């Protein structure tokens, strides 16, 4: 089995410290996280992590189970790129005079599906959304014109299968009663069993 890109989607309660608990699961195995996004989900009180790693499936499966073991995690799924629709957002800052002079900006915007977010005298910021190769392409176009700064977001992803995660989540959300804690047989017998 060879390594490939996997997107791990984790549904969690919104709790301080959980990011650390989840990150530890990767770091203790020396697995590098390519990208990580966390945001509220469509369900009240439930957050969603989207984590991209390069690994063999066997390992990813075990990681998902370890993640699911965390008390505040509802569910962890993993998918190959074929099974998801995914996007990243990129922003590019370039000198306004250069770009206005030398580039057919409208063509650029059309061709790369980009959008001007801010236009100032000194610089202009473009934004585009897409997969890695697409956002990379615009870098190479803009670089000759003095690309000042570039930033790319973490991946966001949605599963292709029509039922998606939501159904499974609802299934999971059905409550199950917990177990009773067994009482101590020595309770109330302190004087008989302890000398102090």
């Amino acid at each position, binding site marked *: 089995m060879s390594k490939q890109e996997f997107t791990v989607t984790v549904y969690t309660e919104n709790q301080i410290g959980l990011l*650390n608990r989840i990150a530890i699961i990767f770091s203790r195995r020396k697995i590098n996280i390519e990208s990580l996004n966390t945001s509220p989900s469509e369900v009240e009180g439930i957050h969603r992590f989207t984590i991209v790693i390069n690994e063999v499936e066997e390992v990813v499966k075990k990681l998902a*189970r370890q993640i699911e073991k965390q008390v505040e995690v509802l569910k962890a799924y993993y998918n190959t790129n074929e099974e998801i629709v995914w996007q990243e957002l990129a922003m590019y800052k370039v000198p306004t005079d250069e770009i206005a002079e030398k580039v057919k900006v409208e063509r650029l915007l059309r061709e790369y599906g980009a959008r001007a977010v801010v236009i100032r005298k000194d610089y202009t910021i473009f934004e585009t959304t897409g997969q890695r190769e697409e956002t990379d392409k615009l870098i190479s176009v803009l670089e000759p014109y003095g690309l000042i700064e570039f930033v790319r977001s973490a991946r966001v992803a949605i599963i292709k299968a029509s039922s998606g995660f939501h159904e499974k989540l609802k299934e999971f959300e059905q409550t199950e*009663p917990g177990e009773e804690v067994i009482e101590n047989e020595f309770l109330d017998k302190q004087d008989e069993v302890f000398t102090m």
Partner: protein
Amino acid sequence: MSSTIEMAPKKIQTKDKATSLSGSQAVLEAFLAEGVDTIFGYPGGAIMPIYDALYDYQERLNHILVRHEQGGIHAAQGYARTSGRTGVVFATSGPGATNLVTGLADAMIDSTPLVCITGQVFAHLLGTDAFQETDVINITTPVTKWNYQVTDATEIPSVLAKAFYIAKSGRPGPVLIDITKNAQIQKFDYEGYEKCNHIRSYRPKPIVRKEYVEQAAKMINEAERPFVIFGQGVILGKAETEFLKFIEKAGIPTAWTILGESAIPTDHPLAVGMLGMHGNYGPNVLTNECDVLIAIGMRFDDRVTGRLDKYARQAKVIHLDIDPAEIDKNVKSAVPVWGDCKETLPLLTELIAPKVYPQWLQKFREYQQQEEETCINPELNPTSDEMTMGEVIRTLNELTGGDAVIVTDVGQHQMVACRYAKFTQSKSNVTSGGLGTMGFALPAAVGAKFGAPSRTVVAIIGDGGFQMTLQELGTIMQFDVDVKILILNNQFLGMVRQWQQLFHDKRYSFVNITSPDFVQVAKGYRIEGNSISERDKLKAAVKTMLDHKGAYLLEVMVGKENNVFPMVPQGCSVAEIRLK
């Protein structure tokens, strides 16, 4: 398990509703509601409000002042392991909390339910490097099942309810609650305590899949050489009876991991001994000859499996475990049976045919015979002048009849004790399995006695490990804890010396350890003791120890360079186990 959606949580009225309580009082009310009777702890500035409140609860909560927080948490582990309940610990912030880390790691890997309460600096000082401030939550995250920092007293009842629920349910583990000093002092309107039995994101038990149980039963019914191996899951699941019913109907030879030991009587007719690096010959070798391997509540630790690519390749593995993450983690199973074995075992027992495997069992007995001749007999009935660890354990067996709780430290004596001790009741073998923590036994024995006050508790410790936490003799003295301390002194860090002998050309690098006069040390703590080095004094000395009313320390001088065999050398297959 029912699938009803609504379940009224159990309301527990300790204090009247809407009484004004401090955060500290709320902690102690939670303990009462959870049935806590014993707390192990050590005070300090950041937990003083809780100790102040404890002053008024002394009649209802028994607090044991230990001599080091590591001792406190190991004691709580010992308590949990013999009582089957949750151990409770107090420690202050900073150094108090960091001293808990070893015990947390130990409890985490050995699935021991604990609730630890640490004090923390005032909330407004968090993150300022205040006096005795450490980021306890982040330090302990990898070694707790769950942890949480409380900065507001109103959270305390619900957070503690969660803590006890998480520690005990599903696969148990340690939970740490860090409470800032302001939250301990803060007064609030107390609305009573509600036990927790549901957390939105937490499913302690996986849903039992009947089709897997059926497949497992079919596989067992068709097996010719089935073999059962089990771990602590049987004890944690309180499934000893269900387990015995299962193996007795199935008629399958059965071996235990070090932590599973004592779940069934050692001399049960189907018992074939201990697995693992220093386990028995037959179960190790025959793991690689069985056709169906039924693993119950165990996690295929590398000390059990040896080389994974040569482990039970021929066998179809049925794995019963409550923790889904354990299934296929190390050994791939043909049939996974997710669930609490207290629920899954009866389902399985129902579906299997009653059987016996006399020839297959005989094979185990043949290996046992070989092991008897080469290892067991020389160890238990030595002809040399020097005493062996094995004969000390044999003598102990003879005098206790296998009814004692045995708490072991880590090293050769641990392996010898676990190999040769006889057990008649469950929850009798307390040892640090997954972490192998030296210094565990003395404090754990203290806790074990509080967890099982009516039983004889014998701590078996090496001369090295004893010196790691011997300050707990002070706790034993102060609280009159009736534990028997048996030091097996070989004047070496024995297990490391054994490895140096076998794998490092006898280059004994820093394993020669000098010890004080242990009997004098005990005397300093007003604990009686004796030291012997001759065989003819052994039985009487052990008897004196056991008969003594109260704590007693017996040091037995044993052979300096004895080795524990059999042994599966690291990196070898279980079938390559060496008898010498």
